[in-house]
């Protein structure tokens, strides 16, 4: 048992903090822009890319990779520290998809050629990624994917529509999962995982604006998009297994507990400064603080497992679900703290926390949906974690 970071880890944290103190645009910190809220900033993509490249230069985006691929072989806690500080300093720059999902997938299942081709771009912060899984008719039910890639001599040709593609409007590359065998039984055996250059002819990206009025998601249309066969990861018709191992990763990549804790801290500061606290609110603030701490620990457990070479599975579903649902409850609570003022948007000079209360609240409706719904998470915990039987 050891609940402290090592002196080296603490030193790294200090280094990151000093860097962010200097580099994070003042407006992001002043306005307390949270991770899930950033797409609302008009300069976000630019700042995101520039921060990513600065972190890439320092080697921070890949330091937990094996040395062979440009990393320093440090523990996953370094990535976690980095992301905690990014949350604390309201900083953009971390590509959850490229760094959080694609890089681990490549390290785990990619060919040497693929690793050499793609890892450096991710490490440098210069390549940004998106992921296209969901389709209009299939959200949670991955195995039902319909978009089809037909095989030709040296490539696959994709036609169809994907949706809910975060960052699709500026990503350089795309992790695409489509059907390559329509006869496969069970049907999840007919899926393949491709790496796709977003500049490939035939790809159209349309924005899907969310209920907070922000552009974060996209629909992506594929019209005779041809993908070289060497861009298959993990083997033909084996995409489902790649995705499954990715999902566990995805669930541990965002440090939602830290984002939630940062928001809670800012909220309490605001309430304090504006003399809004009373015993009832104080009691609720304290309850949320306790839960943020638990969320942190549930997440650390996953990082610790990874540091020991174990693969968190239902443990990451637990951490992800608890953190996201907690952040959702805190965002809901935020609307109580400032009374009618809470409903003001950032366009109003009277808006508390520069409009953060209302925009965090609106964004939070997706927290129990993204990266797999809370229902799926609970199914996973019950069936994989506790061995409860499936119905029938």
């Amino acid at each position, binding site marked *: 048992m050891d609940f402290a970071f090592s002196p080296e880890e603490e030193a790294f944290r200090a280094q990151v903090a000093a860097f962010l103190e200097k580099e994070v645009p003042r407006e992001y910190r002043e306005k307390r822009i949270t991770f899930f809220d950033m797409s609302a900033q008009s300069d976000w993509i630019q700042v995101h890319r520039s921060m990513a490249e600065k972190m890439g230069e320092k080697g921070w985006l890949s330091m937990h990779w094996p040395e062979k691929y440009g990393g320093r072989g440090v523990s996953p806690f370094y990535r976690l520290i980095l992301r905690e500080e990014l949350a604390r300093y309201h900083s953009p720059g971390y590509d959850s998809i490229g760094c959080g999902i694609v890089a681990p997938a490549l390290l785990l299942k990619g060919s040497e050629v693929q690793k050499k081709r793609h890892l450096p771009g991710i490490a440098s912060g210069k390549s940004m990624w998106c992921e296209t899984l*969901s389709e209009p*008719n*299939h*959200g*949670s*039910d991955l195995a*039902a994917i319909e978009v089809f890639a037909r095989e030709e001599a040296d490539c696959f040709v994709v036609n169809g529509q994907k*949706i*809910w593609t975060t960052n699709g409007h500026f990503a350089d590359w795309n992790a695409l999962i489509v059907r390559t065998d329509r006869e496969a039984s069970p049907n999840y055996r007919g899926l393949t995982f491709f790496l796709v250059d977003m500049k490939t002819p035939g790809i159209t990206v349309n924005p*899907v*604006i*969310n*209920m907070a*009025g922000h552009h974060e*998601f996209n629909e992506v249309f594929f019209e005779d998009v041809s993908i070289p066969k060497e861009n298959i990861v993990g083997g033909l018709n084996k995409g489902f297994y790649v995705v499954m191992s990715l999902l566990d990763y995805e669930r541990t990549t965002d440090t939602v507990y830290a984002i939630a804790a940062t928001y809670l801290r800012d909220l309490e500061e605001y309430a304090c400064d504006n003399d809004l606290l009373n015993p*009832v609110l104080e009691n609720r603030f304290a309850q949320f603080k306790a839960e943020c701490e638990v969320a942190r620990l549930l997440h650390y457990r996953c990082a610790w497992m990874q540091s020991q070479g174990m693969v968190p599975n239902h443990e990451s579903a637990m951490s992800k679900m608890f953190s996201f649902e907690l952040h959702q409850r805190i965002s*809901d609570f935020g*609307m*109580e703290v400032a*009374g*009618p*003022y*809470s*409903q*003001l*948007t950032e*366009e*109003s000079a*009277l808006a508390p926390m520069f409009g953060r209360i*209302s925009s965090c*609240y*609106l964004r939070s*409706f*997706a927290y*129990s*949906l993204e990266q797999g*719904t*809370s*229902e799926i998470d*609970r199914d996973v915990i019950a069936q994989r974690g506790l061995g409860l039987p499936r119905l029938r």
Partner: protein
Amino acid sequence: MDFGLNEQQEMMQTLARDFLTGEYTDTVLKAMVKDEQGYTPELWQKLAKMNLTGLSIPEQYGGIGDFLDLIVVLGEMGRVCFLGPYFAALVLGASLVSEAGNEEQKRKYLPGIAEGKIKATLAVVESKAKYDIDEIESRAISQGGYYVLNGRKLFVLDAQSVDYIICAARVDDADVEQDGITLFIIDVNTPGVSIKALPTVAGDKQSEVVFENVKTSAKDILGEENEGWPYVERVLHRANIARCAEMVGMAEQVLKLTLDYAKERTAFGHPIGAFQSIQHRCADMLVDIDGSKFATYQAAWRLNQGLDAARETAIAKAFVSRACRRVMASAHQVHGAIGFTEDHILHYYTKRARAYESSFGGIDYHLGKLAGLK
């Protein structure tokens, strides 16, 4: 004990529902949320023609029906997420004039409201936004037979589309701790009145209204000098109950949307509405909605009977607000990603429900009122 609607209420309900479903489509709603005033004069004329703008106004002033009829219609407006100065004009303006106004004032304003030609709203809260008497600092100083009014009001409903604003203020050296407040009805075109829209999440039309050396007179006082607060309290009861009625209508419509989606959308080979987690959510939604409806009706009925409804109003607003939160959250959960998009109609309801929750006092405010009643 009667939990049903009477003939007239059912008629009003059908009338309003038929009209609004036909007229107030999702497209109209979306446009109105973007619109600066949030309604069109054409629609207002249609409402007036149907006598809906006369609801709860005494017959001798051109009105029709009682507060319960109005509540039934507001429920239907909730269903379509109606925007516009209807609430302000009928629930705030008309009822204050009816209750506090003298004969002359009633004749001046009420027929006009009933005919759809005049609209008035109420300006109470200031920077604390707490709906307590002691936060009111606007002040009218008497000066040569007139009053000169100065003050800043927040979260004033539909100020941009009304003709009159009823302003709660102190007169002369009235003490904030001890003395009462006075209600002035002010023409929005009076020099010194300035109205500034407050950009809200729901896009409903709330404003900051500043009175700067606005000249007004004793003729424009509703009720007696320093005796205005009891009227405000009663109108706040009405307003909270009316908000509840709208929220119930909104929640009903949202449950309908959710059920339609749950029956049609499939996952893992089944309509998602067949999964127990979805079923149990929907069951809880119905409990919340029916409980909300009866709590609202009970408070409305008491008020309509002229009975004290302080307790029932606090109960209704506290319960309906929380129930609505749960209903909206569940609707989003069942709808999944599609309900999170700007194109979908769901979030219009979610946002508005939250706006209505915080208008005229939030949950803790009403629980505090309830705790204070022994």
